[in-house]
């Protein structure tokens, strides 16, 4: 069987560029990991620690749903997977030490006994979850902490930057972290960066009843993981500059972009904007070289895929006669909207709801224009509805934690190419 590698596609609004002028060019880079069927498709082993908040605020429906979600998670795992269960308030308890998922009823019986109480020692609980996972670190498995909380870290280490930095440090050593925030009172400025720096996902559960489906999404993502430690190098041609990368990925020490883990069957869309100097009619230019580096989940080996974008330059009339690829404008608009959501959060933080509304209003108009050819596409309709809802929420006095979280998570998930 041939080695299955991600496919790279370069897409532009039109496949050729107008000659004799300097121009900004938007390029959509689509990375499509192979479907599970095209390689062995063997599901990776899981080594998970579920770290559940049982502080007082979790009392009632939240703790009940958290119990159900944990039980669901255990039901989805196989006997070859490992799981541990850490619960925390101001004290940490390893309810179930890391073990193979052999005796489900034994593990679930412990889950049933979780009750809410006291305050939130989030950091220490995360460390304990990490100890459970790292105590059985398996380089062939996905070693991950899934931290579930509805509150603010208020016991032990609470400094956001330090916790995020520690989560990144642990990820470098083989243990990733995903975070799930429930309700309106947790700190998304901790949970999102924590997951992003730690190679995991961050989810916001607005309605407690959705907790189980979020767990399902997280688990499906783990099971479908094709590659981790993914990085992207972009080398433009002489005279060409990368002026922007709309996903706002962090950079590695070597100047590459840190990409999220790749999942089988889920393409990752990246939009870059290039400044291209004038070229003569009829010429061709290799605009951009790309290097995608990753560690294959199945092989455990570091692999590199190389590709490049070469385009032809024509007269304006020739280029305008070419069909438009509306998808490029749509993805570009969605990523611009992600940035707008972050900007709206900044306005909110300064008490400037009007500014936040203005930003969203502009993006609603811009999205309608950019996506005019795909106005009825479900993704466009959903996006416009989402922006409209946020705009309305900001209009009323009810704009608060919930709106801020919807903005922050909307931006994060879009830029990471994730869908709930």
């Amino acid at each position: 069987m041939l080695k299955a590698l991600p496919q790279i596609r370069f897409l532009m609004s039109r496949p050729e560029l107008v000659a004799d002028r300097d121009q900004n060019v938007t390029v959509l880079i689509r990375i499509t990991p192979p479907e599970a069927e095209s390689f062995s498709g063997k599901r990776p082993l899981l080594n998970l620690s579920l770290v559940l908040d049982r502080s007082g605020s979790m009392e009632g429906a939240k703790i009940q749903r958290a119990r159900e979600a944990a039980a669901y998670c255990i039901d989805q795992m196989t006997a070859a997977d490992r799981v541990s269960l850490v619960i925390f308030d101001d004290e940490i308890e390893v309810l179930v030490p890391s073990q193979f998922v052999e005796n489900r009823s034994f593990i679930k019986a412990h889950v049933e006994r979780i009750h809410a109480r006291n305050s939130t020692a989030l950091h220490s609980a995360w460390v304990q979850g990490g100890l459970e996972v790292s105590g059985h670190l398996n380089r062939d498995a996905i070693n991950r902490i899934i931290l579930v909380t509805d509150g603010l870290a208020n016991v032990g280490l609470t400094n956001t930057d330090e916790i995020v930095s520690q989560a990144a440090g642990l990820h470098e050593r083989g243990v990733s972290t995903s975070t799930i925030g429930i309700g309106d009172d947790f700190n998304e400025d901790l949970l999102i960066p924590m997951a992003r720096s730690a190679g995991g996902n961050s989810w916001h559960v607005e309605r407690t009843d959705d907790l189980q489906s979020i767990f399902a999404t997280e688990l499906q993502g783990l099971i479908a993981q094709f590659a981790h430690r993914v990085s992207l190098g972009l080398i433009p041609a002489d005279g060409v500059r990368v002026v922007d990368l709309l996903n706002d990925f962090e950079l590695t020490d070597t100047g590459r972009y840190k990409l999220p883990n790749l999942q089988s069957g889920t393409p990752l869309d990246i939009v870059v904007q290039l400044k291209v100097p004038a070229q003569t009619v009829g010429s061709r230019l290799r605009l951009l070289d790309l290097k995608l580096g990753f560690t294959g989940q199945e092989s455990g080996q570091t692999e590199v895929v190389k590709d490049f974008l070469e385009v032809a330059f024509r007269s304006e009339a020739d280029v305008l006669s070419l069909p438009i690829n509306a998808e490029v404008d749509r993805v570009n608009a969605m990523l611009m909207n992600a940035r707008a959501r972050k900007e709206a959060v900044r306005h909110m933080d300064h008490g400037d709801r009007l500014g936040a509304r203005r930003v969203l209003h502009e993006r609603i108009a811009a999205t309608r224009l950019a996506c005019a050819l795909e106005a009825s596409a479900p993704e466009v309709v959903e996006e416009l509805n989402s922006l409209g809802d946020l705009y309305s929420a900001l209009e009323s006095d009810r704009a608060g934690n919930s709106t801020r979280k919807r903005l922050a998570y909307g931006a994060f998930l879009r830029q990471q190419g994730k869908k709930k």
Partner: protein
Amino acid sequence: MKSSLEGARGRRYIGVSELANQATTVLAEQGTVQGKGTVSDFPDERTVRYYLSEGLISPAVEKQGTASVFDYIHLLQLLAIKKLQSDHIPIRKIREIVGGSNERQLERLLFTGGEAGERNDARRYLESLLVRPSVSESRTSAARPRSPASPTEAYMSPPREAEVSAFASEGIAKWERVEVEPGLEMHIRSDYVLDSGQSSLSRIRNLIEKSLRLLILNQKQ
């Protein structure tokens, strides 16, 4: 641990002390250390009798004269207890886990796949986080009375509060780090109380000055 237990299957231990000795041999080979000061690293005869009386270890399979006879599963149970104790699992929980596990499950608990039990990089890193003083605000540290202002504080960057985690109660010393200037720090243990009297401050200042002079002298040499 797997290699340490090779050959132990099928073997019998006559008397509590032989069982305790065998467990001690295995644990010593592994270098297992208990974090809690109240828990001994190795089980002695008295500890094993206590575990038996508490139901953490199953009753002996038979008697040989006055001595109880134990076998492989008893050794696994004893080792599992020590392992879980080193993970800070409460005794009631250990009873449930060990009591509810058969021989194979106990082996898995002890042998643990992958890099189990090894002091891998991730684990070492996390353990360092438990003792590393960090920038934080904690309920516990906020409640602790701070040292009174001293003349030296004028030269310091703002003091950073030490991490006081839930593990503080487990005997790990907590230190507060104060940067005097780049490259020079003071470390203060959480239970240290500085007398606010002028004579005490002068004494501390002299001690610090003396330490610094010694340091400079050593550097010159």
